[in-house]
């Protein structure tokens, strides 16, 4: 190390730097580097520095000359003050320049007018094609098991009149007295003098029938589901729904803005794996509300949901169940109390049960039943309840009478089940179609075996089949119909809605007719 005094004074900060940056492995230290520089400098010291110093002195004197004797505020002005002032000016000018932004040019009035003139909207509706002009059959009498179309007597398998209550005298009596007392409409929503005592009686009767704490009545079957779901499911919640649910439920799911995951139609393994995936993937999902939405008897396929397995899965993963019992209320179970009785599950395990009354109960409207907190909440937050007029009172009294009839006549259910079994026997060996519904469901669904590939073609073929059944054999059957808004992709087919009011000859007739038409049209 050089014990030079100059080297030492420079070496102390360098030592500090050395402590921080030096790498012992390389053997290079800051100290040695500095020492090297100084050795170099010491050699060139004499010539270069002398010249440099002379030049610097001369410049300083030249610049100092003009202000050599100026004293401002007791400070001698030196040449460097001018340089600093100049630099200061330059900085000020640069800062005051506006930064470069590409100029914004909003559209002028004239340009806006031109755009408005040029714009051509699409027509309100696309052009009408021939298949859109199909007219439905017009009934001239009540839609019971036998009805009149175009003056001819027709066997009706297209009404969801499962217990044959259409045309029942008790129902007609109670409706007539309600009409004479209350008129037809209720003229107001439930919050503003639209609550008639018949509504309250109907709600109590349904709660008693199903042994649930409370019930709320809706004025339209389709609006029940799409008002209930957005009431409880908000943005951010998780809903696991069956892919075959009907349009009302799909609309409710869309309006709720929650995250929706579909599982394969009526497949419990798919449901289990979906629930597993959701609960393990997302640790945060413990604080989110989670729902499973299913139908008891699916309108689009006639399958029955295995409620006992769903309840087991729900309790394992802590989900809540919303069940639509439109086609199973009054039909399944020993006394018609629905899917819970059918599977032997206590109804308290299902959190929300909704149903449309336009099926077994032969009236209109819908209801939702569950525990008191859930029902109370809907009375103020369910949009289809608060912002819409209430159910006409005669339809509510028809519902009460229908439930009384079901309670007192359990043999209707037995008859209906027998008819379903008979129909299954008759349709077992139909060609070109196969029975895709559950053997106990009142919706007997025949799906097309060989689909042509395009849903539209299939629907047209089925429509032709239903038309011919009506014209040639006087039979009304349901062919699947799809709106473009419906997202369900289940196979299409012919639906037969079995009623307790049909006779055995009706069932034989429909099996023969369908077998004949299937062999003519589908092969």
């Amino acid at each position, binding site marked *: 190390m050089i014990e030079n005094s100059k080297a030492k004074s420079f070496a102390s900060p360098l030592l500090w730097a050395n402590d921080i940056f030096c790498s012992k492995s390389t053997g290079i230290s800051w100290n040695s580097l500095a020492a090297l520089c100084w050795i170099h400098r010491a050699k060139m010291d004499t010539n270069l520095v002398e010249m440099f110093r002379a030049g610097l002195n001369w410049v300083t004197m030249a610049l100092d000359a003009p202000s050599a004797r100026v004293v401002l505020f007791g400070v001698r002005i030196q040449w460097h003050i001018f340089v600093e002032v100049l630099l200061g000016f330059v900085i000020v000018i640069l800062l005051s320049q506006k930064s470069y932004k590409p100029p914004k040019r909003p*559209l002028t009035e004239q340009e806006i007018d031109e755009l*408005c003139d040029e*714009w051509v909207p699409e027509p*309100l*509706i696309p052009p*009408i094609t021939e298949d859109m002009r*199909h007219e*439905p*059959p*017009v*009934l*001239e*009498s*009540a*839609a019971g098991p036998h*009805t009149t179309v175009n003056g001819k007597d027709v066997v009706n398998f*297209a*009404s*969801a009149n499962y217990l044959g209550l*259409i*045309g029942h005298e008790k*129902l*007609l009596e109670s409706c*007539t007295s309600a*009409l004479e*007392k*209350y*008129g*037809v*409409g209720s*003229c*107001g929503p*439930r*919050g503003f*003098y639209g609550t*008639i005592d018949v509504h309250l009686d109907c709600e109590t009767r349904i709660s008693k029938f199903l042994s649930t704490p409370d019930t709320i009545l809706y004025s*339209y079957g*389709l*609006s029940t589901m799409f008002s209930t779901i957005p009431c*409880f499911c908000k943005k951010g919640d998780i809903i696991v729904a069956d892919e075959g649910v009907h*349009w*009302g439920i799909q609309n409710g799911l869309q*309006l709720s803005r929650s995250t929706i995951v579909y599982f394969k139609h009526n497949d419990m393994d798919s449901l289990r794996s979906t629930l597993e995936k959701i609960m393990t993937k997302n640790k945060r999902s413990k604080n989110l*509300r989670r729902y499973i939405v299913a139908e008891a008897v699916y309108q689009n396929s006639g399958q029955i949901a295995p409620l006992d397995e769903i309840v087991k899965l729900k309790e394992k993963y802590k989900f809540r169940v919303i069940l639509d019992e439109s086609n199973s209320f009054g039909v399944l179970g020993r006394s018609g109390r629905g899917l819970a009785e059918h599977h032997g599950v206590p109804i308290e395990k299902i959190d929300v049960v909704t149903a449309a009354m*336009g099926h077994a109960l*032969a009236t*209109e409207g819908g209801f939702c039943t569950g525990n008191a907190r*859930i029902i109370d*909440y809907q009375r103020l*937050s369910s949009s*289809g309840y608060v*912002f*819409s*007029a209430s159910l*006409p009172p005669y*339809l509510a009294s*028809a519902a009460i009478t229908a439930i009384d009839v079901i309670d007192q006549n359990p043999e209707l259910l037995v008859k209906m089940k027998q008819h379903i079994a008979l129909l299954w026997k008759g349709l077992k060996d139909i060609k070109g179609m196969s029975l895709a519904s559950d053997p106990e469901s009142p919706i007997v669904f025949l799906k097309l075996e060989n689909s042509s590939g395009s849903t539209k073609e299939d629907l047209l073929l089925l429509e032709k089949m239903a038309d011919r059944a009506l014209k040639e054999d006087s039979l009304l059957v*349901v062919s699947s119909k799809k*709106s473009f808004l*419906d997202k369900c992709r289940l196979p299409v087919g012919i639906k037969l809605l079995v009623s307790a009011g049909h006779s055995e000859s009706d069932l034989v007739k429909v099996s023969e007719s369908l077998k004949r038409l299937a062999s003519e049209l589908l092969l």
Partner: protein
Amino acid sequence: MITIPYLTAVSTYFSYGLLFAFGQLRDYSRRIFDWWSTNNLHGYAPICLAHEDFYIRRLYHRIQDCFGRPISSAPDAWVDVVERRTTKSTRCLNLGSYNYLGFGSYDEYCTPLVIDSLKKFSPSTCSSRVDAGTTSVHAELEECVAKYVGKPAAIVTGMGYATNSAIIPVLIGKGGLIISDSLNHTSIVNGARGSGATIRVFQHNTPAHLERVLKEQIAEGQPRTHRPWKKIIVVVEGIYSMEGEICQLPEIVSICKKYKAYVYLDEAHSIGAIGKTGRGVCELLGVDTADVDIMMGTFTKSFGSCGGYIAGSKDLIQYLKYHCPAHLYATSISTPSAQQIISAIKVILGEDGSNRGAQKLARIRENSNFFRAELQKMGFEVLGDNDSPVMPIMLYNPAKIPAFSRECLRENVAVVVVGFPATPLLLARARICISASHSREDLIKALQVISKAGDLTGIKYFPAAPKKQEEVKDTIKLD
């Protein structure tokens, strides 16, 4: 426009603040004193978070006797309001039901026909319209409605709310624009949201703002991509149910024609109630029905039934019948209700052989104008245009809502009061609906009771007009 007096605004904010503070205090003490009460749902997220139903629990439940009052008779001019938890009922004058033409109870022409059709067709068809739910009554109803409204064809569904929710998504989808009035009904908002189109709002009943919004939106195009819009639908209502105002239809229709937008008119309250023959706002304001592309309405208010309709060109209705979910999947409208609508239309048009229809229409117009004029003379702040049967009286303060309602009920007059969230927070009101079945004596009694209740609650925000009798007395004295 509603201009709230400064002092009233301050006192209303103060009242709400006080209620909010007390509500929070009660919630807090409930949390302290009740923390040991368990509920069985461990591991489940609460179905309703505390702040979501705070308003319901702490503000609404205090005055819930003013809402949802049960009745035990038909919703006619006089109605039996049931006292809760008893079987007692009191006969009250009904100023709350939507019974504009008085069809809400037993009618000598309509009800026998309805009972006949009930016996023939049963309360329900249990089937959707395309399967086996179309009866001859439904076909007749659609023709009748189309003729009445003044359009080539119509389609009828079982519920007015569901009509909007199911039709708007069929007509417009992603890539379209819906411009709706800021005070439109929830059913229109739900239908618009369900369609997936972009939604823009224009100031209530202001055609100038509508024009500005239209120009801006057409020039800008779709958000982010700036592609031109596929189509634009402007949605307005005939009578707005919370304001009683009639829409400025001629200006709006001319603006929409200029910018090639489609007009959707929701006549829930105005069909059957205004216009010389009850044909709604188009007749009243002289707008040609061919200029309005889609006319929608409900049968609950003026026809005393249930259900909704859409009227338009034949092609439009055919398209809707093929695609509308309410037509394909929902149970068809109950046949006796359909018969009631047909009979009510026949009475209104005088086709039943009497002039009851014309009498009803004249009576509702007289009643509404008389009532509104008298209320304004007394110094109440009444909203709404002339000829409209809906009259909101401003209350503002949250404490006056139950006070006014209970005072009126004590004197056997049943009124409807509305607060947040159906109206803006500061603008609570009492809404009167006049019916053709109210007689002049009924209205005078109602005026007396409302005046007394108004004095007690202090809602006469405007100075009362001087009484004419005083002037006459003065002149006599001079003589």
